[in-house]
């Protein structure tokens, strides 16, 4: 008998120690929304001393609109039994003593006794996590923006240099922007340079093929350039046929071909210096 009482005591005090040292805030309220107990983390999170909030309505820790609605939320739950947050968890906003608000992740569980319910909420400050997420998203956004530049290299010739690995989202963006640009410039030739793509697998190849089909539908000839020997080998091994697709090993050759398709000619000046001189003359 004594042994079990001692065991229970030990269990209780270890639970208490856990609560005291938990980083997450723990609050218990009765079914009228009155705070029964809080752990030290709650004091730190909200800036109140626990004596200031115990026996107060939990809504003092909430900004509008929850501040005014919380009593109703409780009443709704107690009458209908439909849980909106209990056992589900949700992101909510907390209100500190100094009036500032902060994002919280809140989980609530209900402890039922015979005639009463007690609700225990566990809260975690997610300010940092949210900020990190936003930072990451904006960085990803700017990366994505940078990742699909389209250059108009000559009248009716577009160049799409692809750098880095291509996932379906990037491929989608590249396609959209290249189609937009084709329409804008009435381009006749689109050169896709894949020299900067580290490896081409069947997924990337199928993305490329999609882009090429789309440019064809826009009445544009598509040339793929910058295929390294390794990539050529992989494509051949994968059995991906690029038969209908014009490919050139280098961008230089691709450009020459593009000019040819438009009935223009790219002329190499025999005398490098006189070429430069005449070019400079023209600039003047």
């Amino acid at each position, binding site marked *: 008998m004594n042994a079990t009482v001692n065991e229970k005591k030990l269990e209780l005090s270890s639970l208490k120690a856990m609560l005291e040292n938990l980083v997450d805030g723990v609050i218990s309220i009765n079914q009228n929304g009155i705070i029964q107990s809080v752990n030290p983390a709650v004091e730190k999170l909200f800036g109140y001393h626990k004596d200031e909030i115990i026996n107060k309505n939990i809504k003092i820790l909430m900004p509008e609109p929850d501040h005014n609605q919380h009593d109703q939320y409780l009443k709704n739950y107690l009458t209908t039994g439909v849980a909106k947050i209990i056992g589900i968890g949700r992101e909510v906003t907390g209100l500190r003593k100094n009036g500032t608000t902060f994002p919280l992740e809140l989980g609530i569980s209900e402890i039922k006794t015979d005639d009463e319910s007690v609700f225990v909420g566990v809260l975690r400050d997610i300010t940092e996590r949210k900020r990190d997420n936003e930072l990451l998203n904006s960085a990803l956004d700017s990366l994505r923006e940078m990742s699909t530049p389209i250059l108009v290299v000559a009248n009716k010739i577009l160049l799409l240099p692809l750098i880095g690995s291509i996932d379906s989202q990037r491929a989608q963006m590249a396609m*959209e922007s290249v189609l937009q640009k*084709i329409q804008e410039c*009435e381009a006749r030739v689109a050169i896709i340079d894949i020299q900067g793509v580290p490896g081409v697998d069947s997924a990337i190849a199928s993305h490329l093929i*999609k882009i090429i089909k*789309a440019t064809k*539908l826009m*009445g544009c000839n598509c040339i793929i350039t910058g295929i390294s020997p390794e990539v050529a080998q992989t494509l051949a091994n994968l059995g991906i046929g690029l038969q209908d697709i014009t490919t050139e090993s280098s961008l230089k050759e691709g450009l020459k071909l593009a000019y040819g398709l438009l009935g223009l000619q790219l002329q190499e000046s025999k005398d490098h210096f006189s070429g430069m001189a005449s070019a400079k003359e023209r600039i003047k």
Partner: protein
Amino acid sequence: MTDSNIFEKVSMHVTRGCLVVLINFELVDQAIIEIQKRILERVHSSEVKGIILDLSELEIADSFLGNAIKNIARTAALLGTTTVVTGLKPGVVASLVELEIEFENIQTVLKLEDGFQILTNLMKITDRELDEENKYEE
């Protein structure tokens, strides 16, 4: 919108030996079938050598429209007529590619002007071939 209204809106003109069809609103499936029929009848009666389907007013395409275009081209080819599709917008192209609809033998160009160019070039070639054949017969 009643059916008759729809067809008044689709303009079909025979010019420079080509039938130019301008589809300028989103079509319901039934209308597409009807238009398909009318185009082919017109091709047959006017003996044009080329069809230009101008879709520049459309913002998006579905598989039904895509297949109808393929169908028109295939059937027109049986009547000895070449089909060129002009003015596909990025949204239309993206949806066609997404739906994996392929216009195998249909030329697509951006501008109506280019569409005419392709067809007139084609007609010149056939004319020349015919001339040469006639020579042999003489």
